[in-house]
């Protein structure tokens, strides 16, 4: 797809991630011999459009249906909530071209466990049984196939889209105390949670966007010439009255601060409403606030990118999805939590041509495609970005292969309750 070239090449920023990206772009351009498309420098047009087919092979373990299908049958709400990526990834891999039926030639092994599908009556997932479920699944695959023991899971990947990933708790303090499930320490975790220097994010994890239903989003598109007249837009809670009535815990006080400082500001269209025109309103806004909640990630980021609204990310040390493929600091605005009271000064002092450039980058269709999980899968979508991420980690380091009989993982670590069979 052609993107209009509107600017000359700009010098790259100094972050090491960007440097790697540029190196990869050069590499790809040279190796594949293809001309780089008419995208702006640093717009990651090349890397996002990579085709993972041929670069890796994934073997999907056949687990008994109590780990996946039966859970889904018990509660079909799992298909529409924001953690649905684990289910759709499984379905995608089953029919994908990267799937191999011969495990001996596989680079990566996938275990389909729907750990976020045990829902409370109000629809929120209960993570209390997830560690036991995971442990039971790993015991199964290590007993039935030799590939787990070969590397103790270093060439396996799991999807853990819950609030704090593989820490399997919704409360941050408890999640930190638990840490990542010990059995998953060597595996690659594909999760939505990402925060730097956090216990629940391993080096080498792949951060993905939360699931947003693509058909629903596409059905709410409005004509692109509708003028953007809202300056800043946000809909959501500022105080979680059920769990943190006076504020200070929820969102580390950032959302409450947003409300107290800007509730009287006409430029800020923020409220706790649930309008039916939520998606349409985002398409009429210049900036969309994406503050942290109980966890730093939220589907607002996905919605903002798709609707062309510049995301204003208020979450200290957050790791954003596909950070090595998408140039987030060029698309969005990052505001430290302590700077929230000065948000209006920050946003109005951004020069207009910087804003226009961000909007042009956001308009790049491959960026929008990379945030979605469409059914059926399309080239460049989030499924392919996950596979690209996995492909970039290949080839595996020889050190991960253990000598026979060598054990690294501690199968008895963790709380006693985790060892109960599931």
């Amino acid at each position, binding site marked *: 797809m052609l993107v209009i070239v509107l600017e000359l090449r700009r010098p790259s920023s100094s972050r090491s991630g960007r440097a790697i990206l540029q190196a990869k772009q050069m590499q790809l351009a040279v190796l594949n011999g293809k001309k780089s498309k008419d995208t702006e420098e640093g717009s990651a047009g090349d890397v996002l459009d990579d085709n993972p087919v041929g670069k890796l092979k994934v073997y999907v373990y056949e687990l008994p249906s109590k780990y996946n299908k039966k859970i889904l049958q018990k509660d079909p709400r799992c298909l529409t909530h924001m953690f649905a990526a684990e289910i759709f990834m499984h379905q995608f891999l089953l029919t994908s071209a990267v799937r191999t039926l011969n495990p001996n030639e596989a680079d990566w092994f996938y275990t389909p466990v729907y750990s976020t599908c045990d829902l*409370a009556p109000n629809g*929120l*997932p209960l993570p209390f049984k997830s560690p036991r479920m995971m442990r039971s699944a790993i015991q199964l695959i290590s007993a039935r196939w030799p590939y787990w023991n070969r590397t103790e899971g270093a060439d396996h990947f799991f999807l853990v889209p819950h609030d704090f990933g593989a820490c399997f708790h*919704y*409360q*941050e*303090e408890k999640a*930190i*105390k638990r840490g990542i499930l010990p059995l998953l320490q060597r595996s690659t975790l594909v999760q939505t949670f990402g*925060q*730097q*220097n*956090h*216990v629940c994010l391993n080096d080498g994890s792949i951060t993905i966007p939360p699931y947003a239903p693509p058909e629903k989003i596409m059905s709410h598109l409005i*004509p*692109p*010439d509708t*003028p*953007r*007249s809202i*300056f800043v837009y946000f809909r959501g809670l500022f105080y*979680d009255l*059920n*769990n*943190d009535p*006076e*504020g*200070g*815990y929820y969102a*580390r*006080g*950032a959302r*409450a*601060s947003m409300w*107290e*400082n*800007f509730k*009287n*500001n*006409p*430029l800020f269209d923020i409220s706790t409403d649930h309008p039916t025109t939520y998606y349409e309103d985002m398409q009429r806004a*210049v900036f969309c606030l994406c503050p942290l909640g*109980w966890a730093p990630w939220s589907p607002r980021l996905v919605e903002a990118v798709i609707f062309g609204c510049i995301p204003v990310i208020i979450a*200290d*040390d957050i790791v954003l999805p596909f950070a090595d493929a998408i140039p987030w600091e060029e698309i969005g605005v990052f505001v430290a*939590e*302590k700077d*929230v*009271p*000065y948000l*209006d*000064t920050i*946003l*109005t*002092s*951004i020069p*207009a041509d910087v*804003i*226009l450039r961000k*909007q042009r980058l956001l308009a790049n269709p491959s960026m929008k495609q990379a945030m979605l999980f469409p059914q059926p899968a399309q080239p460049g979508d989030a499924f392919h970005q996950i596979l690209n991420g996995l492909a970039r980690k290949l080839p595996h380091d020889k050190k991960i292969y253990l000598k026979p009989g060598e054990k690294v993982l501690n199968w008895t670590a963790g709380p006693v309750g985790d060892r109960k069979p599931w």
Partner: protein
Amino acid sequence: MKQLAALQQQGRRSNSFRSNSSPLDATVDGAIKSPATIFWLFLHGLCCLISLVLGFRFSRLVFFLLFSASPSPSTTTIYSALRTTLPAISSPQERNVSADGAGSRVVVGRHGILIRPWPHPDPAEVMKAHRIIERVQAEQRSQYGVKNPRTVVAITPTYVRTFQTLHLTGVMHSLMNVRYDLVWIVVEAGGTTNETASLIAKSGLKTIHIGVEGKMPLLWEDRHKFESRMRLHALRIVRDKKLDGIVMFADDSNMHSLELFDEIQNVKWIGTVSVGILAHSGGSEEGDLLMRETHADEKDEKKSQIPVQGPACNASGNLAGWHTFDTQPFVERSAIYIGDRAVVLPRKLEWAGFVLNSRLVWEDVEGNPVWVKDLVEIGKDGEDIESPLSLLTDTSVVEPLGSCGRKVLLWWLRVEARADSKFPARLLELLSFSTTISETSLLLYIWIIDPPLDITVPAKRTPWPDAPPELPAYVEKVTTIPENTEKRPAKSGSKRKRSSRSKRKHNVKVLDIRASTKQAGDN
């Protein structure tokens, strides 16, 4: 799932309170009431009462005061004691977890809610934001809007009269906000005058000011015909000068929406838009009657309150005919002469509802379609051209615009003062007090009552004090309310109460500008 967290927090809070009151747990032993125990009892009771009133906030505050090791951080940006940032190490509540020891700034636990001392918008920033929004919208337009915008040629017939400035300024401001290139042809009855010329010179638009011989007639019927002649004259100018673009007819008393100018860019040869007809009368009772009748009499499909003249489409979206204004109910009550206080009726199809490609009126252009007549053949015998449809041999080629006439993009209105009403040479210019003195080199045109009246009685209902106010130094002459109130047409007169009319004739107030506008608003 969050309810569980809530329960745990509740437990934590009550713990803190209990620990707070633990020094008070020196329980009363038996009947011995030493002063110490009484004192503690009293303190306990006091704390209970305060907690009842303030709730957990009190416990948190006491906790903070008792246990905080370091003073709270700089309070320049922090709002109040109850919402200060508790230092992370101060209370055991927060001491428990940090996400990771090494290098992480992010701490789990309670954080303060930062509120800056003046949480209100700064006007300079608001202006910056609006400029950003304008840039964004301009960029959107250039990317998704009309690709090759054509020049708009607006034709306005006018003549010097009381309300000319009012109407012409309205049209002028609408045209000044049009985002495309514009040529404004102002045709004036009775020849060009300096008044009109000076008015339209302020627009900064490209104007062509031409005059047509002959005074504007007094009767509405004749006026409509005369205006058609004026418009034809303007079309001849378009033809002679070979102006390229889209011709639209902006009558000076009509109101145009800016979407109209975006929509007419879509016209190929000749198009038509829906015009809302604001036919009304003077006098409030007649107005109500009229509104009720027009509601019953509307002819178009949508349930609008005002009658609409415009294209009617069939199911496939092609032009099937026109909606016109039904003049039946108003036949007896219609206005005859200008300034009459009855309903002013539009003609069957107003010129304002049509837009033309200017090439249609050029001479000898090859690409012109066959159904257009040559301009010179029309109207040369002085016949009445009712609408641009007379330019066509085949009226079915007209393109309906504005989603097939469903969108009303302009409103037709005719409001005039009596033809013999007096009005000053140019309208009063209210000085804006923020401009510098040097800009007041404009001459002040004022309405003045000469000779001054002998009796001035203060109005009873004004909130201003009775003492005559000080006139500001830079107002040279006083401004007074004009005398000819009864001659004004009732559109603005309907705002005044009738009972005050007779009083007003003799009451002229010596006011400064502020008070005068307030008075106008009062009545």
